[in-house]
């Protein structure tokens, strides 16, 4: 029994760690897509941020400087996306694809030529990383059944970005549904002309949404390279940006549901790692690749309306042109 609790605690703990970058990126996408700027470039922004964090943390020896650099890099890419899609009314999908590819190439190239470690950034000392924070009494309670598992394993012992990610969910909810910016953001995704005629600049509103997206992707990337690991590794996002996108659709562009979707997808990942080579009764060996594909399959099923239905913001993907 204690073994099972420990195993479950372990899996949930690892699911939390795995879902944090998804959650940041997913909420990032939420701001952008609610403003009707589709963003399949979450992956690239995360990657750029991860590289900037790894590189600057290595150079300055400060995790916070790394985080700032991550936010700056990711926001720069977000503004690039905004420039193409908002100012120049370019195709949002193409721009997103381009940003993913630019980020993949640029980070690996710069990494290789700056640090000469095959595209990796130097391994960070603990002082230059975000380290797990032990909650008071976590050690003492560790032995207590159940409470110990929950308190010491699940709540305590994460780095600050994990708690920030958790706080971003209610914050985003509040911004979206209780502030002026949120009202306008939701409106511009549905009917930009209504926003324009109400005397609000559609362009500036969308730029702000895109910047929010960039900042949050910065957190996601920094988490990968200077919190979860101790250096940037080439292509370290490995599709997480797309899982975040899937989670966003799964959550139907709503913040609280985004938390659920990201945790679910993180859990799947954690389970896949745990279950490698474990044979189930009746089913037998579940291929790990299948578990990895589940988020994508679920998203496709949801989009197709077989179970529920995900309807994106009405004006999504369409540049705003004043009617003549």
């Amino acid at each position, binding site marked *: 029994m204690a073994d099972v609790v420990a195993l479950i605690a372990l899996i949930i703990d690892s699911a939390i760690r795995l879902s944090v970058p998804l959650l940041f990126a997913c909420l990032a996408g939420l701001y952008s897509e609610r403003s009707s700027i589709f963003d399949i470039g979450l992956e690239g922004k995360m990657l750029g941020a991860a590289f900037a964090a790894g590189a600057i943390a290595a150079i300055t020896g400060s995790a916070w400087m790394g985080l700032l650099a991550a936010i700056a890099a990711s926001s720069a890419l977000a503004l690039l996306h905004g420039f193409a899609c908002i100012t120049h009314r370019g195709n949002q999908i193409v721009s997103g694809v381009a940003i993913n590819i630019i980020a993949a190439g640029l980070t690996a190239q710069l990494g290789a030529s700056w640090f000469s470690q095959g595209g990796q950034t130097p391994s960070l000392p603990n002082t230059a990383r975000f380290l797990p924070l032990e909650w008071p009494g976590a050690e003492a309670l560790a032995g207590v059944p159940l409470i110990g598992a929950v308190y010491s394993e699940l709540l305590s012992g994460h780095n600050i970005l994990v708690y920030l990610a958790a706080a971003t969910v209610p914050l985003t909810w509040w911004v979206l549904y*209780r*502030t*002026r*910016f*949120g*009202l*306008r953001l*939701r*409106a511009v995704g*549905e*009917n930009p*002309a*209504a*926003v*324009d*005629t*109400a*005397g*609000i*600049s559609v362009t500036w509103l969308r730029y702000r949404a895109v910047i929010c997206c960039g900042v949050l992707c910065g957190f996601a990337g920094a988490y990968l390279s200077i919190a979860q690991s101790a250096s940037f590794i080439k292509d370290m996002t490995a599709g997480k940006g797309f899982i975040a996108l899937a989670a966003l659709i799964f959550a139907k562009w709503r913040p609280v549901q985004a938390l659920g979707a990201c945790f679910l997808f993180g859990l799947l990942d954690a389970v896949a790692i745990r279950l490698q080579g474990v044979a189930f009764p009746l089913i037998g060996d579940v291929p790990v690749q299948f578990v990895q594909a589940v988020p994508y399959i679920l998203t496709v099923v949801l989009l197709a309306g077989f179970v529920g239905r995900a309807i994106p913001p*009405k004006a999504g993907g369409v540049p705003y042109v*004043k009617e*003549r």
Partner: protein
Amino acid sequence: MAETAGSPAIRLDGISKSFGPVRANRDISLAVEKGSIHGIVGENGAGKSTLMSILYGFYQADAGSIHISGRPANIRTPQDAIAAGIGMVHQHFMLVDPFTVLENVILGAEGGLTLRQGMDQARTELIALERDYGLEVSPDATVSSLTVGQQQRVEILKALFRQADILILDEPTGVLTPAEADHLFRILGQLRDTGKTVILITHKLREIMAITDKVSVMRQGEIVDTLHTKDVSLEKLAELMVGRRVLMQVDKQTVDAGECVFEARDLTIAKAQYVRSLDKVSLRVHSGEIVGIAGVAGNGQSELLEVIGGMRSDYTGDIMMRGRTLRPAISAPDAIRANGMAHVPEDRHRMGLVMPFEASENCILGYHNEDRYQRGALLDRAAILSDAAGKLERFDVRPPNPHLPASSFSGGNQQKIVLAREFEHDPDFLAVGQPTRGVDIGAIEFIHQHLLDMRARGKAILLVSVELDEIRALADRIVVMFAGRIVGECLPSVSDAQIGALMAGLEAEPGV
């Protein structure tokens, strides 16, 4: 705000605006008196909407100046316009469908970074406004659940909530039922009585006569005259609008109606359990006859055309050609064409043409599977081109160049391309929707003449138009639609009042 006494609410001086080579507004000067309802009439494309968009900061005028209450106003964005006390009710409502009425009203005027306080205040204000002007809508209703008339009231509330003194309404009755329109006019009257200034843009002369104090007539981007409404007759206004005496009486030969070519029986489209966009529509069209369908836009005419054109399958009922039931056995548009029917769609931009395609390619749209255009597995380009050249020639399309993309022709010439394609197919039955919408006067006459020629050649024609005058001039019989039903039939000679009553649904059973 010290106002210069007696100065007009709005004064425009020498406003000009061009879109590339198109001069939408030329040297427009206009004064609108405070506390009046000022009408602006003109045909589609006369430049009314452009002028109002300039006033609302949507576009910048190339030249000219605007004075609001005697002070020069520099209106560069809608925000400037709102600040100057101008509110606008657009033809297509600027509402966010999933939002509540309250959320829509405060959008852009939230009164703070967070919503709560502003929302509470706005609710109180909104309820007061609704009471003062009889604009009943629930603040917490979702916009998408409101009727069109109610949505329009939300637009008016938006403007009033922003303390607009000047209210511009762009074609406000196009989507309203007659009762809703009357309600709107009562509201506008009340607004005037409380000192607000109302500008009403429309192309419906009767509205102008009914509620405006003064009226300006626009034609081809210019204001041709501004008059006191009480001093002017309908006929005079119509003449000013089109620029010469309109004798809508076309030279119509008598043609003896022959056998019944087309028959529709009980065509019905059920949208929801009790909502039907078509409700048991039955009609016959005989050879050598034009049957006109009259009605306020949105009363099922579009659906009827689409059903007849084979474009939708969500209906019940039968369609018969020369006594033979066509459907539902055969229901695709190409099968319709093969059975001697042709369909000129209401909206040539949306359906009738593919704008980037060459004229020649547009000339085979819908007939592209016919043998005469094929050479083996490929399309026979030479045949298509020569065929198109002939059509353009015969329908006097200018320039008669089959290589030009459809988008480079004027509206009238585009419509001629569509008509050439459908008429030359030599159908027995023609369903024609809005044949002269957005078409210049010269082309209108040409098109009318061609329709009458087809009639003289014994074709059966069903004509749908929102222009009552057009229907009167061309049709042998008029069928009036209201709320998806045929509510009456009359001869083109009956009085306006009689047709008007039918179109308003006054003779239909209430409470559906």
